[in-house]
């Protein structure tokens, strides 16, 4: 059987993820993995997932989004809300599966709704509007109160008191205090499975007829339109899928860290930009690169913990140097001259 080049390339990507998973399992079962490392595994998977999602938007669709954590936030809140409500009534596995369906569904819905105005814009204007939507989602959730009691749901945009709950009532989303005590369902295995599914969705999309249409739009909008490609439809499709995957990352997030608040350090533009850093360093349009870069860059500040207060300083310097080494035309030329063919092989 002949396997074409692209399929082989994709198989390598899946292979890396599976191999990494097996390796970790071996290390863990032989006791070679510290608690610190074990704790980092789940965050690594959801950052890898959202990096894949953002790469679909930035690399394949060619539209810069700096508000992707907003979709992660939607996925996290809707799924945590569901899990919290049904914690006692549904069995764990089914509940977590439904939480995924809900988180992904809502993130996709918002991706679709936000995509309608956003995708009319171009370049930096589009980028700033995604940032704006990310901030709007965060800001609104911070003023969002919802609770339930024997009379049903109560909702307010002002304060917890305005809910007017009965004494037996329970506030589920409490404004800036968010959702506390979501069941701790997510684990490394779930994370890896979701990562593999996201990779399959994105890689299959890229290699399909639709994917080629999307990339044609990226490369030349007018030419694509002239060739009869329905530009709006394909743009919306890619953006919505990207938002849905980001939502899946959010579901894992909220079921791993059991305190969920919509504050800047988790879902603000800074967080979105951090994901963008993963995508750019991993290679724009290179899905496998995003996964690897997300893992390395998430690990880096954690491994620098020994440096204490100099840790973020070193991280920022490493970031600047890596960018220059990887992207500067002069450095690339120099690398090619000095290392010859090696430079090409090293590039993943």
């Amino acid at each position: 059987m002949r396997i074409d080049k692209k399929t082989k390339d994709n198989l390598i990507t899946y292979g890396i993820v599976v191999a990494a998973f097996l390796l970790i399992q071996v290390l863990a079962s032989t006791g070679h993995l510290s608690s610190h490392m074990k704790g980092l595994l789940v965050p690594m998977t959801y950052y890898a997932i959202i990096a894949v999602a953002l790469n679909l938007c930035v690399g394949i669709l060619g539209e810069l989004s700096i508000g992707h954590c907003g979709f992660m936030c939607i996925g996290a809140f809707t799924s945590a809300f569901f899990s919290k409500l049904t914690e006692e009534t549904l069995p764990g596995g089914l509940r977590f599966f439904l939480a995924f369906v809900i988180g992904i569904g809502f993130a996709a819905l918002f991706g679709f709704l936000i995509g309608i105005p956003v995708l009319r814009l171009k370049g930096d204007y589009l980028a700033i509007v995604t940032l704006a939507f990310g901030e709007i989602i965060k800001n609104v959730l911070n003023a969002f109160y919802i609770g339930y009691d024997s009379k049903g749901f109560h909702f307010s945009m002002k304060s917890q008191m305005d809910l007017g709950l009965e004494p037996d009532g329970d506030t589920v989303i409490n404004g800036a205090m968010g959702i506390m005590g979501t069941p701790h369902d997510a684990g490394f295995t779930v994370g890896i499975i979701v990562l593999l599914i996201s990779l399959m969705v994105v890689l299959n999309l890229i290699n399909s007829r639709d994917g080629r249409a999307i990339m044609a739009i990226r490369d030349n909008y007018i030419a694509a339109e002239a060739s009869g490609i329905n530009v709006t439809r394909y743009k919306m499709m890619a953006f919505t899928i990207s938002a849905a995957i980001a939502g899946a990352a959010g579901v894992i997030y909220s079921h791993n860290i059991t305190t969920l608040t919509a504050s800047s350090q988790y879902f603000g533009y800074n967080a979105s930009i951090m994901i963008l850093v993963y995508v750019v360093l991993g290679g724009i349009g290179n899905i496998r690169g995003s996964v690897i870069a997300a893992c390395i860059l998430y690990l880096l500040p954690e491994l620098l913990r020994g440096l204490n207060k100099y840790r973020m300083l070193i991280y920022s310097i490493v970031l600047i140097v890596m960018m220059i080494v990887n992207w500067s035309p002069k450095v690339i030329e120099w690398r090619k001259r000095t290392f010859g063919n090696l430079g090409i092989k090293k590039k993943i």
Partner: protein
Amino acid sequence: MKKFNKVVSAVMASAMVVSMLAGCTDAASTDTPDAKTDTAQQTNNSSDSGATFKIGAIGPLTGGAAAYGNAVCNAAELAVDEINAAGGINGYQIEYNKEDDEHNAEKSVNAYNTLKDWGMQILVGPTTSTPSIAVSEYTKADNMFQLTPSGSAVDCVKYDNVFRVCFSDPNQGIASAQYIADKKLATKVGVIYDSSDVYSNGIYQKFAEEAKSKNLEIVSAEAFTQDNNTDFSVQLQKAKDAGADLVFLPIYYKDASLILTQANTMGYTPTFFGVDGMDGILTVDNFDTKLAEGVMLLTPFAADATDDLTVNFVKNYQDKYGEVPNQFAADAYDAVYILKQALEAKNVTPDMSISDICEAVKGAMVEIEAAGLTSSKMTWDASGEPNKEPKAVVIKEGAYVSAE
């Protein structure tokens, strides 16, 4: 040739991932002894017995909330050094280590795991509420004793292995409303609170409930967020227009100092009433303390109190870190001494397992009566909530004076 390149790239890629992961585990395991020797040198210079207590602290050492985390980690370190110099706990020295969490729940769990690898037996922290709640899930699973100096949200102590030193948020909101109503400080109250902050929201919610039952009229309740905390002219103007004669500020001193300055330039002079987060306002570098004249606050700690304990603490802290300690520092300093008292009450030794230490300390916490910087008499019940009296102070001529 092309095919060969592909194979090589695949091999290289997988080799890189493997080496990276191996590198991580290596780094993690080599890191630990390094950290050990480091802190051992700092805090463990007179120990001759092999066993030591290992106490860890977590707080934001970088990022926007770094001021609070640094205060907690520094003060805990100071207390550890003092205890070690005085012979340790039950004759055993203490090793101390701190980790940064950037005020982020996820990073806080990472910090906790790092400390666990280092061999931490008791956790003093995390400094802030949301990280503290997230970490408590893990300390509960490991049954490690956790004493948070300043995690004030209700849920911080929902597990039986977690206790706290500071007041809870609802407690402060209720106490503030009661104090204002009982002393008849005002009938029309304006509130400016941080709607993006757990602490501020928690206090405000209970304050509003209690105010209602005490017939205090809240004439304006205006919010700001951490993304929008430079301009307070609107919030102040609204309080002014609504005729508030007291403005309640359940926020930290950083934002409060800005509010006081802007109120002054507006020419608005109500009574300002703060909570323990307001402590520290007088020591903001270059702040004109005249602006804070007449500000009242409920705080357990005042850096210029004249009792020996506070004087010594403030002096030593200033000598070592070059800053005047705030309420966060005081809570952390107390936390370490409270642990010492609890460990001594049950004759705990470092060779006991983490879980045994936790059980012993839990038992001791409900029995002991601690005296510290933040109260001369603190007791706990099994819920983890401290019983201590908030003190009302008023700022006069740049110093706290008891408001009684």
